[in-house]
């Protein structure tokens, strides 16, 4: 249907998560219409985020200009407690509750053999290395409240408990099957407060 640069743009947009062919077309035509400087701001933002933003070498959160993220670099945070999450976006959700003052570890997903994700595809070895380094006393597993998230929580608990770490899981009350990032801060805060040790 479309050729050249327009086709290329539609194809690239269509590769983004949550954007189907129709939305891709709509966005592409919108971009065609906007003033040139608006389009440049968008493309600059994409380039800059790729150049200046990396993943934290310790926890795999988003880091801006440095090996470590802002949370890992902050001496005020409790180094003995970590919150294990699937995705950097989940850190934002937990931070909003103001109830957690430790550090994080981003696994980069959940166990999901159907999508080819096993322990090797997650930052599990890196988590073990952090435990080996000694400081961590408690791990709160805040994976999503769905089947894959629950399985991952149990997997982490079975891995860390023998190493002397207390592993706990958010209290129930989060909508089952949902995503952590959509949970409101009150609900998530209560779930954090009421966390329970995972039986392994």
């Amino acid at each position, binding site marked *: 249907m479309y050729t050249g640069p327009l086709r290329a743009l539609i194809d690239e947009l269509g590769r983004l998560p949550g954007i189907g062919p129709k939305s891709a077309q709509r966005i592409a035509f919108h971009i065609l219409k906007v003033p040139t400087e608006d389009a440049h701001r968008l493309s600059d933002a994409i380039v800059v985020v790729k150049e200046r933003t990396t993943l934290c070498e310790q926890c795999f959160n988003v880091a801006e200009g440095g090996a470590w993220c802002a949370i890992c670099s902050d001496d005020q945070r409790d180094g003995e407690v970590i919150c294990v999450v699937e995705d950097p976006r989940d850190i934002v959700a937990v931070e909003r509750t103001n109830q957690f003052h430790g550090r994080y570890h981003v696994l980069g997903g959940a*166990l*999901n*053999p*159907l999508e*080819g994700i*096993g*322990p*090797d595809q997650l930052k599990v070895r890196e988590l073990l290395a952090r435990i080996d380094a000694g400081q961590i006393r408690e791990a709160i597993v805040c994976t999503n409240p769905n*089947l*894959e998230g*629950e*399985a991952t929580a*149990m*997997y982490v608990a*079975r*891995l860390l408990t023998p190493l002397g770490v207390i592993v706990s899981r958010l209290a129930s009350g989060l909508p089952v*099957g949902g995503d952590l990032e959509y949970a409101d801060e009150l609900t998530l805060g209560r779930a954090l407060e009421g966390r329970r040790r995972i039986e392994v």
Partner: protein
Amino acid sequence: MELVNFRIFGAGLFSPEAEGTTVVTGPNGTGKTSVLEALAYLGTGRSFRGAPRESMVRTGEDRAIIRAELDNNDNPTLVEAEIVPAGRSRTQVNRKVVQGRKELSTATPCTIFSPEDLVIISGGPRGRRDLLDDTLGFLDPEGARAADVVERIQRQRAALLRQSGGKVTADVVSTLDVWDHRLAASGMTLVKARERLVRDLVEFVGPAYGRLAGSEGRALVGQHYVRSWDDDLLTALQAHRSDDLRRGVNTVGPHRDDMLLEIEGREARTHASQGEQRCLALALRIGVHQLVLSRTSVIPTLLLDDVFSELDPARSRALVAELPPGQSILTTAVPLPEGISVAHIIPIGQLVRAS
């Protein structure tokens, strides 16, 4: 209900009466059954004919859409299903993606009667398990959720077994341990829910069979849930693990269980005549329908696909007498038996609009 690229329909619109019987008429092969199949798909997420997804999509198209506006106890409900053979099919209720069978059956409650029901009695255990699990969607939210979860775990576990290629690494063992624990927990919830359901159903199925077969007395029909493993599910999973790894499939679990059906102490699958099997299949569907009516405020729409052509006049009358009032939609290739008051007749040709 609107159909887009569903089977032979490029575009079609179907408006049955809200109360009473709507009859869809037309020659064979013009899509009468497809109309019922589409409605039943909304309620169960699959074809009652056992057809694969791709056969429900019109030739040359990449997806089919079924869209229905329903009025459940004065709750206007919009149900939309997208059937994509090559991708992810999904159903939305009031624009929210459906997570499991409870939401499907709540949004589009229906009871289907079709000549294919014979397979529930004469075929493999899958049809009997599906009947039970679909019914849990109406009656037992916890059991229905367990059925969804077990299905999902089985797929995850099968993927893991295949990926391992029979190699037992530490990662494979530790992740299998986790899936097995989840499967054992949800599996036992499911199995207990199915066992309760079978006990409840026999109260309705036995008498219905007696009335349909003209032989009173419910002692005729036996119904037993049969687990496919002994003792504890977790122990069984662990005992069969090396087998599972070698073959790359889930060999133990609720997905291998069965419901044993007997007529006068004989197994119906192997020892009943086809007439008895047909009668028992009808009695099962009636039993489910009556159990749902007796336990909930839900009144499933009755979908009858050409059932009277398989029944003699006496049984046809007996079936009509069993069916409670409410909305029903039926297709037929033979004259309808007495006792059915038809509210509306829709010739199939009226459904097909120019694409």
